[in-house]
C-alpha cells in the first residue's frame, strides 16, 4: 500500500521514537497537519512564533539528549526558524527541522511564500535537504536523524514541497542509513591516548578544562573518575557547567570572561591543560598570545576541525569524549599535585566569587520607581546574586536552569551551583536573547514533574514573551525568574566599563511593561519582589504552583556589574575584580 509523503513523514517520526513536535502551520504544510491531527502518537505543541518552536526543540534536546523536532511553513515560517537553528548549530544540538516549500514546479518562481530555505540555512545547519520526490521522504528523514544525532550533533533541515507531501510512495524505513561521505569516528587513537596518560601522570600542575562536548557525550562520570584519579582540578566552560559537580573539592567552577579568579589563574599557571570537549573559544582564551603560555596542551574533541583552530595543541585526540576517557582512565596514575591543589585552595580563599551586599550600588530609592515602598531610602536594592543563591536553595540545586542572555545568564552561571549534567540550558555560542522562555518550555515538556527555572532579563524576556501563551496552553509550571534591572544590562556594563558610561540605547525602564500584569494577562501568576527579606517567601509561593507558569519580577539593582571580568581580548591577569 502506498502512503502520502505526509504519512510517510509521521510514520518515519514514529520509527525514530519521536512523540513530541513543536510547530506552526501554514498553507504549504496543511497536508502534513492534516495527518498530524489523526496521529495521536505524536503530540504537537502549537507555538506562537516559529523561533519559539526551534528554541523549544532545542531546550528539549539539551535536557534529554534526544533530537528536537520542529515543523514550520514556507517563506516567513521558514525564515522565522533561522535564529533558533543557528543557536542550535553553534552549540551542537541535535534537531530536525521540517519546513514546507511551494510545489516543486513553482520553486524558483518567486511564488507566494517561497524562500530559498536550503540556501538560507546552509551555513547554519549540519546538513540540509530539499526533497523533490515522495519516494525519497523516508530515506532522507532517516539520514537526517542519523546526521543530527551522531558525531558532533547539530541541526538538520528538510525542505518539503507541498506536492511531495501529497504525492504517494511505498513506505519502507531504512535501517541504519549508510552515507558514504559521513563516517563519524568515536574512538581515539590508542597511541595518542597512551601519550596523554603519560603527560597527565607526569604533570605537577594539571588543569582539566571541560566543555559542552563532555555533556553531549554523557561523560560526567568519566570526568569525575579522571579528576579524582589524577588529582587534577577541574574548570568548566559555560557550556560545560554540570559536567563536573561544583560542590566537589576539585571544582574551580567556570572559567573565561566571567569565570572565577582561581580558575582563570590556574589555567594561566598550569603546566598541563587538558581540554575535554571544549573549543578554546575567545570568551575563554582572551588574548591568545598570553593564553596559558607555559602549559602543554591536550585536546580531546570529536570534531577534527576544532583541533588547532585557535590554539596549537601538543596532543590532539580526535574522538568522542566518553569513549576517549574510558580508554584513558585506566592508563592514568595519580599525579603529584599536592602543592598545586594547596595553592588553588589558597586562591579560592583569597579570591572567592563574591558580591558585597554593603557595596553601595545604587542609593537613591528603589530604581526610581514611585509605585514602590521606599521606607528606607538608603536601603540597598535587591542583588541578582542573592536572588540566585536563594533560587538554588529553593530548588535544592536540582532544577533545570534555563537562561536567556546577558548579565543574568552570567550570574546564573556563577551563583546557581551546577552539579548535574544537562541542568544548565543556555545559548553559549550564539548568545541568543529570547532563548530562555521557549527553551524552558521544551525542557518542561520533556520533564513535566521537574523544577524548571527560567532565568531571564527584562530585555530578553520580551524577545519571545508570546510563548507565555504556549506555556499556558500546556499548563507548564515554569518558574520564570525575571532579574529586572531596567536595562539591557550586559551592554550597559560594557558601556559603563569601556565607553566612559556613555549609555546608548540600553535604558528600558521607562517603557518596560508591568510584567506582573503581563503575566496575568496570559493567565499566569505574576509576583513582584523588591526586598531581600521577601525573596524566600515569594519563591516558596511560586514553587507551590504546579498548573501554570509563574513570572517573578525581581526588581534588582540597576547598575550592578558582573565580576570578575576579563575584558574582551585581554589576558587573564588583566581581570577586573569587583
Amino acid at each position, binding site marked *: 500500500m502506498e502512503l502520502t509523503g505526509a504519512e510517510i513523514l509521521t510514520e518515519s517520526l514514529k520509527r525514530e521514537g519521536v512523540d513530541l513536535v513543536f510547530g506552526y502551520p501554514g498553507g504549504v504544510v496543511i497536508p502534513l497537519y492534516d495527518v498530524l491531527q489523526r496521529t495521536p502518537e505524536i503530540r504537537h505543541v502549537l507555538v506562537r512564533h516559529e523561533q519559539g518552536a526551534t528554541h523549544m526543540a532545542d531546550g528539549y534536546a539539551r535536557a534529554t539528549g534526544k533530537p528536537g523536532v520542529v515543523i514550520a511553513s514556507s517563506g516567513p515560517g521558514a525564515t522565522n526558524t533561522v535564529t533558533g537553528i543557528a543557536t542550535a548549530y553553534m552549540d551542537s544540538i541535535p534537531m530536525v527541522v521540517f519546513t514546507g516549500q511551494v510545489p516543486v514546479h513553482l520553486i524558483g518562481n518567486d511564488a507566494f511564500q517561497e524562500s530559498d530555505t*536550503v*540556501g538560507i540555512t*546552509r*551555513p547554519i545547519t*549540519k*546538513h540540509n535537504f*530539499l526533497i523533490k520526490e515522495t519516494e525519497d521522504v523516508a530515506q532522507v528523514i532517516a539520514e537526517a536523524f542519523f*546526521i543530527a544525532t551522531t558525531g558532533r550533533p547539530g541541526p538538520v533541515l528538510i525542505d518539503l514541497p507541498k506536492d511531495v507531501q501529497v504525492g504517494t510512495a511505498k513506505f519502507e524505513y531504512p535501517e541504519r542509513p549508510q*552515507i*558514504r*561521505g*559521513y563516517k563519524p569516528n568515536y574512538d581515539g587513537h590508542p597511541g595518542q591516548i597512551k601519550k596523554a596518560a603519560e603527560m597527565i601522570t607526569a604533570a605537577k600542575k594539571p588543569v582539566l578544562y571541560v566543555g559542552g562536548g563532555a555533556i553531549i557525550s554523557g561523560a560526567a562520570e568519566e570526568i569525575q573518575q579522571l579528576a579524582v584519579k589524577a588529582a587534577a582540578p577541574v574548570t568548566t566552560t559555560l557550556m560545560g557547567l554540570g559536567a563536573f559537580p561544583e560542590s566537589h573539592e576539585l571544582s574551580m567552577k567556570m572559567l573565561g570572561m566571567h569565570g572565577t579568579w582561581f580558575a582563570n589563574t590556574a589555567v594561566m599557571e598550569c603546566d598541563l591543560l587538558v581540554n575535554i570537549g571544549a573549543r578554546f573559544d575567545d570568551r575563554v582564551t582572551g588574548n591568545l598570545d598570553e593564553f596559558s603560555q607555559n602549559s602543554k596542551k591536550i585536546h580531546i574533541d570529536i*570534531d*577534527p*576541525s576544532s*583541533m*588547532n*583552530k585557535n590554539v596549537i595543541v601538543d596532543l590532539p585526540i580526535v574522538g568522542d569524549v566518553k569513549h576517549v576517557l574510558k580508554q584513558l582512565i585506566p592508563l592514568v596514575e595519580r599525579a603529584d599535585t599536592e602543592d598545586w591543589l594547596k595553592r588553588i585552595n589558597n586562591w579560592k580563599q583569597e579570591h572567592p566569587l563574591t558580591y558585597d551586599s554593603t557595596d553601595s550600588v545604587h542609593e537613591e530609592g528603589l530604581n526610581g520607581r514611585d509605585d514602590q515602598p521606599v521606607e528606607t531610602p538608603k536601603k540597598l536594592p535587591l542583588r541578582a546574586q542573592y536572588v540566585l543563591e536563594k533560587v538554588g536553595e529553593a530548588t535544592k540545586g536540582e532544577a533545570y536552569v534555563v537562561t536567556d542572555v546577558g548579565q543574568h545568564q552570567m550570574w546564573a552561571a556563577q551563583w546557581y551551583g551546577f552539579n548535574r549534567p544537562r541542568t544548565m540550558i543556555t545559548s553559549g555560542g550564539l548568545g541568543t536573547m529570547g532563548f530562555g522562555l521557549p527553551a524552558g518550555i521544551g525542557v518542561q515538556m520533556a520533564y513535566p514533574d521537574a523544577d524548571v527555572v527560567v532565568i531571564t532579563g527584562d530585555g530578553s524576556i520580551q524577545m519571545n514573551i508570546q510563548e507565555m501563551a504556549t506555556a499556558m496552553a500546556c499548563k507548564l509550571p515554569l518558574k520564570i525568574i525575571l532579574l529586572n534591572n531596567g536595562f539591557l544590562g550586559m551592554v550597559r556594563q560594557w558601556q559603563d566599563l569601556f565607553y566612559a558610561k556613555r549609555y546608548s540605547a540600553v535604558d528600558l525602564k521607562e517603557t518596560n511593561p508591568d510584567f506582573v500584569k503581563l503575566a496575568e494577562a496570559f493567565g499566569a501568576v505574576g509576583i513582584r519582589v523588591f526586598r531581600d527579606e521577601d525573596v524566600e517567601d515569594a519563591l516558596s509561593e511560586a514553587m507551590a504552583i504546579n498548573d501554570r507558569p509563574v513570572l517573578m519580577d525581581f526588581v534588582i539593582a540597576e547598575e550592578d556589574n558582573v565580576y570578575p571580568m576579563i575584558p574582551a581580548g585581554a589576558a587573564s591577569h588583566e581581570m577586573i575584580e569587583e
Partner: protein
Amino acid sequence: MRRHTISLLVENRFGVLARIAGLFSGRGFNIDSISVGEGAEPGTSRITILTQGDEMIVEQIIKQLNRVIDVLRVVDLTDHSFINRELALIKVNANQANRQEIVQISEIFRAKIVDISPKTLTIEATGNEDKIDAIMGMLRPFGLREVARTGRVALARDFKSKDAPSPEAPESVWEKERKEITADLA
C-alpha cells in the same frame, strides 16, 4: 602564504558546489580557481580548487571541507607529486598583417587555432597556469578580445620512480616544456 591545490571527490548532488563555495566565502577564504566535472564513478564529481593562505588557514579549510556530508574525499595535492593542467580559449584580434605571427606564437606554445574570422583568431591552449599566462602575455599586444580559462585541474601522480623529483614543484612541468620549446627554437 602558499598556493594550495585541493582535490575533492564529492557526491554529485545539487547544492554541493554552493556548500563548498559557501564554506570558503563564509570564512573569508578566497578561491583562486575552481573547476568541477564528473568523476570516475557515476554520481560523483571531481572538484579542483586553487586557494592560498598560511598553513593554519589551509588546515582549517581542509578540515571544514571534510565536514561537508557530500564530500567523499579531500586531498591537498600541494606536497605530493601531481599533474596539473589548465585549458584556455583565447580570442585575439587578428588581421591580414599579423595573422601569421599569431599562428606562429600558438605553434611555439603547442596551442591550436580553433576558430577563425576576418578580425579574430581563437586559440586553445593547455598547460599549467604559467604557460597559459605566458601565451596570454605574448598575445596581449594584439588585443585580447575574450578569454575563458578552466582553472586548474589536477590529479596525484601514482608512479613514483626512485629518482623522480618528489614532491614535484608544480612549476617544473612548465619548466620542462619551456626547455623543450627553447631547444626547438634553437
